């Protein structure tokens, strides 16, 4: 079966086939025999590839179909899609880039400060709001330049995870 895997914006094709005790996997134009066991309630995948043993922590990212995998470093986000899903995702991405970006609270907390105003042009990474959670003040921003078209909370408001804080429209052409 063919999958498209996207990691840090780089797309690679992977073909996976069943084998007796595991899988045959094609990546970077090379076939690998992968012996695989799920360990510790699914915390780890234990992979044996050409005699080398790798223990990779994997889980599905919350509120997303993507995967998180960690091997001797930080979690890496991997989108794994079939051909059909890949085409649908590309289409959706194109539409989203024309639409607004929503800044949502990544965790439950309290709004300390809103640092922008409606109508203001902002840069990617610029602080839009300061939210306090776990006794720390966190500066929240979005990853795209744009114009603030809506602010939906004010200082002092309590926030649930994914509560809408601000809407950022794309810059006018």
């Amino acid at each position, binding site marked *: 079966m063919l999958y498209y895997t996207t990691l840090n914006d780089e797309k690679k094709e992977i073909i996976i086939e069943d084998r007796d005790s595991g899988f045959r996997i094609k990546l970077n134009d090379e076939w690998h025999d992968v012996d695989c066991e799920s360990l510790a309630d699914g915390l780890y995948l234990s*992979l044996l590839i050409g005699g080398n043993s790798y223990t990779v922590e994997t889980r599905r990212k919350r509120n997303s179909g993507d*995967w998180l995998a960690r*091997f001797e*470093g930080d979690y*890496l986000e*991997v989108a794994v899609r079939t051909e059909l899903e890949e085409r649908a995702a590309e289409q959706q991405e194109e539409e989203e880039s024309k639409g607004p970006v929503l800044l949502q609270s990544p*965790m439950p907390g309290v709004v300390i400060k809103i640092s922008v105003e409606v109508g203001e042009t902002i840069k990617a990474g610029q602080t839009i709001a300061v939210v306090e959670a776990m*006794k720390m003040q966190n500066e929240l921003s979005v990853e795209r330049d744009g114009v603030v078209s809506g602010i939906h909370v004010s200082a002092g408001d309590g926030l649930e995870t994914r509560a809408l804080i601000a809407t950022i429209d794309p810059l006018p052409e």
Partner: protein
Amino acid sequence: MFKKVLVANRGEIAVRVIRTLDELGIRSATVFSEADRRSLHVARADEAYCIGPGPSPESYLRIDKVIDAAKSCGADGIHPGYGFLAENADFARACIKSNIKFIGPSPEAMEVMGNKVAARKRMIEGGVPCIPGTGESVESAAEAIPQAEQIGFPVILKAAAGGGGKGMRIVHDAASLEEALERTRSEAAKAFGDSTVFLEKYISGPRHIEVQIMGDSHGNVIHLGERECSVQRRFQKLIEESPSPAVNEELRKRLGQTAVDACKAVNYEGAGTVEFVMGPDQEFYFLEMNTRLQVEHPITELVTGIDLVREQVRVAAGLPLDRKQEDISIRGHAMEFRVNAEDPAQGFLPSAGTITAVHMPQGPGVRNDVGFYAGYEVPTIYDPLLGKLIIWAETRDLCLSRSQRAIREYGIKGLRHNLPFHAWTLEQKEFRKGNYDTHFIDDRFSPDLLKADSRQEDLARIAATIRAYLDRDRIVIEEGMPRGPWKWVARQEGVRGR
């Protein structure tokens, strides 16, 4: 000796204290908030009493409720842990009034040392070196600017009642002083109920070095060597080690003697930590004293072989220290890594959620002090410290590689944590050489540096693809769909057409 001790804390430190009580044959009681019924300290203690709603001002910070719980369960001692009421002199007084021994110093010693302005005065009188500064409260920019100019920029603003990195701000020029002062004062008022702020010279290239001391009620005070705590992010310690790579035997003696002098100046009893800031010239200045057990106390335990909580309990029971200064020797090297529910890839954003699976590192020289388990939902209303990984080895080099090995073994599933940050730090040349100061992280770390190599990326792609492939028949359960496990299996099987 005590019959029953109430541990007035939560999380990993409450579990830590309960362990020693258990070993000493003392019955342990603890308190918990409504948000903590499923927290580990409640399960580990012999007795546990709910003292109110989740927010700490309504539970863990309520002196009356904690004292009531201690009285009604018949505890003859209270161990405050760190944070919450641990450095609250009113709480220590309330304990004395209720005829319950507070396991810590006298309220007077706490009051002097807990207030940075008062502590500084007392230290200067006692001949302990202090950083040039106002030593007194500054209230307005008009007052602060000439003082700052006299001391010389950069200066640092500090909340008198602050600690643990909270309520501090560095100011580089007169222009930004007013806003910084205002913000520091309002934060201090909010966090500590005291807006007193003072100003002092900011040492560049500073190392944070602290000395563990232990005093008894018979006037004996000894030191247990130093801890290097310079790996900090925004004044929050992340990694600590003992001994410090910047301290030799001669300097250790001077630091230790200075710390002992500082404690004798306030008739200190129990465990305490004297914090110093040390410049590249090895000149050191008194920073503050923490009149309690520190988060990072285990590294001192590993290099001295002394259980600090046991000593606290013994000393509080009126026993003299059973060791003299010359009996103390430092053996090997220890490091502590704070495991926080924070995502280093996203500016250390707190990460909430349920820990669904855990694999704790084991093997020689590995100690885990944690307050979580698989299935634990991390409350968002307390600080993000999940636990501590503490490593001991015979030398610093071995300690570095053992730490890397243990972090590779460590797995936590369900939320983001900062272990990838620790793995990164352990690879840095400057850290490995012991050549770092308190700016190390703020200057050098950026989330981009956590980027994986192509081998790690390929493994991530393979693992994720296998998961997706194994999950391909699984249907997403939407609202209104059957939820029972049997129906779930039935539907999956149905889809597979078997």
